């Protein structure tokens, strides 16, 4: 069932952790809450889980209002950042814990535990204690434990952040595969944009306790609505435009945009900036001087100064070793009208 959150507000003392947060999590999808640390994403997850109580707002599962349902009756599975496997119980006992709480029969429990351990490929670790397993194995047991009681929603609180890079990579794919196979509605909190881009059907970008923008990875990258989103997902050049609504100018150059501008902040992705050959034209053309070139192997990152607006530096990329693009070189840069993004 869909999860719908409306108008959630949560204060800790005088500080606001969440302010009027509303969002939808479609059934069967994986939604990522993405944001810098302290943006409220973990608080939002905990409020949805029932581990924190919101000051205002509703949490709906389908048509049922869960706002007053205690955490333990919500039937949500949670995987915590620090595994939090019970250290005194074996892998199998950990997985069985939620089933015992629900008074499953012994044979059913045994069957379900075996099934879950098989799902995370750890059937051979069933009698090990958490301390005897690696971090990645512990986190997989934690996933099995959360999934065992057939939760209606799976909540993952930075599940990969305590693992080293290689294990993280593996587990990312494994979590996504399990999620898609079971078709379970899932919310994952992360501060890692790559993780969100790779795994999520929907990304909800949070900042300062508010939802900045929600949408697919593609939508957020192509059509960021705010400067924060544009800068948080990928990198972007931002320019201040004069007279955006009436006669938009960047320095001395008049701008051609696909839609009328609303704000004075304009964003351009580095890869949207093209070096023009002689005689080649574009919607917007700028004369520029290269100031710095940083060779990074598969590409070269170039810093340049626009003649039209020397106080607004620009960064763009050239693929492979950029022959002849050394500092001091003058050139022409072209940007298509559709690549100028209006940022609030």
């Amino acid at each position, binding site marked *: 069932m869909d999860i719908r959150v409306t108008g959630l507000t949560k204060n*800790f*003392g005088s*500080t*606001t*952790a969440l302010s009027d947060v509303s969002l939808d999590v479609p059934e069967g999808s994986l939604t990522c809450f993405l944001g810098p640390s*302290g*943006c*409220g994403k973990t*608080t939002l997850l*905990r409020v949805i*889980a*029932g*581990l*924190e*109580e919101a000051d205002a707002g509703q949490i709906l599962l389908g048509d049922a209002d869960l706002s007053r349902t*205690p*955490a*333990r*009756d*919500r*039937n*949500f*599975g*949670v995987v*915590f950042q*620090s595994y*939090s*496997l*019970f*250290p*005194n*119980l074996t892998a199998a006992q950990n997985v069985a*814990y*939620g089933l015992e*709480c*629900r008074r499953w029969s012994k044979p059913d429990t045994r069957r379900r535990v075996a099934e879950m351990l098989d799902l995370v490929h750890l059937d051979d670790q069933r009698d090990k204690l958490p301390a005897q397993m690696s971090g990645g194995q512990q986190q997989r047991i934690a996933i099995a*434990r*959360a999934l065992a*009681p057939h939760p209606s929603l799976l*909540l993952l609180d930075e599940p990969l952040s305590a693992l080293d890079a290689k294990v993280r990579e593996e587990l990312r794919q494994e979590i996504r595969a399990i999620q898609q196979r079971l078709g379970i509605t899932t919310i994952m909190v992360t501060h890692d944009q790559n993780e969100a881009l790779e795994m999520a059907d929907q990304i909800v970008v949070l900042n*300062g*306790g508010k939802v900045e923008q929600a949408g697919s990875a593609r939508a957020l990258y192509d059509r960021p609505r705010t400067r924060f989103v544009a800068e948080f997902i990928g990198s972007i050049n931002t320019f201040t435009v004069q007279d955006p609504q009436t006669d938009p100018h960047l320095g001395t150059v008049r701008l051609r945009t696909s839609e009328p501008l609303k704000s004075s902040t304009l964003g351009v992705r580095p890869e949207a900036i093209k070096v023009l050959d002689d005689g080649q034209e574009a919607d917007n053309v700028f004369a520029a001087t290269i100031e710095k070139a940083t060779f990074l192997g598969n590409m070269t990152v170039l810093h340049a100064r626009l003649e039209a607006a020397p106080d607004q530096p620009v960064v763009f990329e050239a693929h492979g070793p950029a022959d002849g693009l050394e500092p001091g070189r003058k050139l022409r840069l072209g940007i298509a009208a559709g690549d100028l993004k209006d940022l609030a």
Partner: protein
Amino acid sequence: MSGAARTAARRGESRSLPALTSDRGIALLLSAIMAGLMLVFLVMPVAAILLRSLDTQAGPGLGNFAVTFADPRFWDLLVNSLTVSLLSSTLAVSLAYLYAYALQRSNVPLKPLLRIVVMMPLFAPSLVQAQGLLLLLGRNGAFNRFLGFDLDIYGFWGVALANTLYTFPYAFLILSAALAVADARVYESATMLGARPGRIFRTVTLPATRYGIAAAVFVTFSLSVTDFGNAIVIGGNFSVLATEIYNKVIGQGQFALGAVIGVVLLAPAIVSKLLEKRISSRQQAQMTDKSVPLTTRANRMRDLVLSGYCYAVMIVFLAIPGIVATASFVKLWPYNMAFSLKHYAFDVQNGTEPLWNSVYVALATAGLGVTIATVSAIVVQKFRTPLSGPLSFLAILPSSIPGMVLGLGYVLAFNNPANPLNMMYGTLALIIFLYVYYNHAQAFLIASTSLKQISSSFDEASTMLGGGVVRTFFKVTLPLLWPTLLGVGVFFFMRAMVSLSAVIFLITPETQVAAVSVLQLADRGAVNQAAAFSMCIMAIVIACLLIVRLVLWLAGAKSVTLIR
């Protein structure tokens, strides 16, 4: 969210689980029970002391204080108490510092032995120190009788020395912990800057342990100022405030004046406790996760000197129980030194009954104490109820109340026909509650600390899987916590076996306990039998420690602290 908000968020996480609303009933019920017990067995006795001290024949007023303060004898006793406690505190802390330094920072051989021997005073009633000193240095002591000395230990020096020995292990435990952690990088920097060992000690070691030193001074001082066993046995004509309460109450039945001195004794204890708390709260964060633990380097000369010191101290701490043991096994100290077991027949008073009373009381105290301290800790740490705040204050209140004062409060509160619990007066049950609440603060703090170390994410994980508080406690918390709780039980057991001053006023012929028997036998001059009784107490305490250590060892829990 700002830093402050995140701290608040984290505090919110560990302090409460709003999700447990369906367990709200359990939380409220347990909180109410704990609060009720504390009101009856802690607040009421303290209130009784305060009220009684203000109760004069002319109605409530400060008359008793006026009478007491007008008496020059009171000021003599006050000076006596303060000087003797200052001296023994200074001695105990200096000696224990060097001893702890030797054990933590040098390579003296046989460290485990050195460590356990100086713990001996904890295994026996405080007055065993005075008993042993008298057998060594008293009129009929070994030195005067057999070695031709002419020493007079009775009085100021006797009390000072006995209290030094009695409080040494407390100081040692604190200082040992303070010296155990050190960041090697600071020492290496000092060495590379050209500092010699003496300067390093003055500029690095000493400042890093100053909070430990302050805490040790406060603890030993308040133990000395409120101890009464040593002063009564070895003090002779030298009296202190603690013995004066005893005389006023037991000797003359002057409860109101006793209560006044009780209030006076509360003051230094509370002040030193508050200072200690303030100081220890600043002690945090000396070690960070980047610190490099200090390793002891070889230094023959240093080790030789420190070994000499340690073994000398060890001999003193062995001599006391040694001489007491000897006295318990001879026909009539010091006149007939033939071996005899007759003093272990206990054909006096109630025979061995006080000993069994003590074991029973100590076991019951351990069981009840662990339960109450753990439940209090859970109520304060895990449940957010309106009672949590007051409970956490009351839970650590007893640490500033001298045992003798609390005991007197129990008499005043429960030996009162108007009290519906009056029937508890004169029963072992009341003594058990006294011991539980007298030692509640330390047990509560141990339990709370362990609970805090069990990550709150276990509670949350259990909740999300559908477990209630009771299930979480028995399936997760208790299996992780039981070794520590067993340690807390041992702590209660030991204290109940050896505390004297707390129960001295509550004793009736039917509820005699072993520590009081030692006092009465020593008072009557039955030196050998008193010694035998002390030996039995020590044997029981040590047996308990060994059994629990074995249980923990078999269960694989080797790092639990049993002696506190």
